[in-house]
């Protein structure tokens, strides 16, 4: 049993071909009126959920594209997006 990630261009490939690009945190907060707390929250704080989370990955040793996938951190396996989320 091996771990894989599905690249939108190259398809299902070995996990070690990819670079992990952190949880999906959405767009950075607006510079206007940015507080320390909001900045720290965006840069450092993690949801670190034990379950499905949306992540950025890059197919480093492949086509080089950046894309998002859902992965279950309690199993390490790629999963379908939970219902009602993309």
């Amino acid at each position, binding site marked *: 049993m091996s771990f894989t990630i599905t690249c939108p261009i190259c398809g299902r490939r070995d996990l*070690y071909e990819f670079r992990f690009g952190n949880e999906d945190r959405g767009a950075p907060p607006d510079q206007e009126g940015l507080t*320390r707390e909001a900045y720290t929250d965006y*840069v*450092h*704080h*993690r*949801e*670190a959920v034990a379950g499905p989370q949306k992540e950025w990955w890059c197919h480093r040793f492949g086509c080089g594209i950046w894309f998002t996938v859902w992965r279950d951190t*309690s*199993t390490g396996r790629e999963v379908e997006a939970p219902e009602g989320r993309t």
Partner: protein
Amino acid sequence: MFWRLKRLWGEPTFKTSYDAVMIGGGIHGLAAAYFLAREHGIKDVAVLERRHVGYGGSGRNTAIVRANQRTAENVRLYDEGLKLWPRLIAELDFNMMPFHCGNLNLGHSEAAMAALRLAVGTANFCGVRSEILDRQQCRELIPELDISDRPTYPIFGGMYHPPGGILRHDAVAWGLAKGAAGQGVHIHQNTEVTGLGLEGGKVVSVETSRGRIRTPRVLICAGGYSVMIAALIGLKLPIHALTIQAMVTQPLKPILHHVISSGAYHVYANQTLKGEIATGAHMDPWPNYTTNTTAHYIKHQAEAMTDLLPFLRGVRFMRHWAGLADMTPDMAPIMDGNDPVEGLYLDCGWGYFGFKSGPIAGKYMAEFMARGQCPEMLEPFNLRRFENFRPMGETAAVVTYGPNN
């Protein structure tokens, strides 16, 4: 039986109220409970453990202790930690199997050597023994080391840190559990924390799978799972859990007399008292709450180890395991309390430094919890250092220097 076997720690009755509750029955929680009871007279303490004592990081690390970190604040803490082991062993009357073998960090580039010189400078500034070795001296220390130009990353030199060594990690957990139980601390195994009760910004209770416990003080020391505990009250931490893997070879006769580590190869190794070469360090950089091991890493480890120490060719790996490391952005731990929630104390984010720091962190956290005021030693490790833009400089540690920088 000729004698009655006595349990190191029993199965105490589950009370509904304690003066302090430690979430996590590993070395950190047990040490904090032990020192709270022994040095501060707070004996009505519970240690809650979801599985059993030493199941998590406490029993999965590679048992190396050292004080050769990058920043002075850290070196001082770990140095005091090193000095605490003999006292603890005597106090607990428990054989923790220390082996004072010293620690050799290898440098494989000029940049790595510069980092080693900085680390030696910091250590000497703090009164900790550490010295730079050239490649010939490295070979004198470990004759089996290949110092030729043949390896992928030839050795430029190293940093020798004599106070470092190894202990038996299970013995540390068991000894502390025995000591804490002897002081009247209740150790509750198979007890999962499911919630934390707050009232007016203060901790008042802990919800567990066995019922509610009322308590004014809670310490989160659950290693890789600390983020999940903090999330129960919506407290976000700058921590992500990574799976770190380690393995041991078949037992050999005594041959490796020091802990050896290399940032470029990303390996460290030591020979246990049983003769196995215990080696580890690989971390997949994506967060995981699994303890899966990977074939990818066995291959990496075999390549790296035989490149550095050619005598290991043909030696078999016997066991391979993994544990969680709770990583912070600056590679330094978070020890804080009463902020932002009164009565809630944090002792987490240790990454792969949790074992060497266990007793000393427990000692200072116990002082913090007993007095309600942060001991001077722990002040730099506060949680707010990230929003104050004062992270520690541990990311510049030797281990992060690869062969090309």
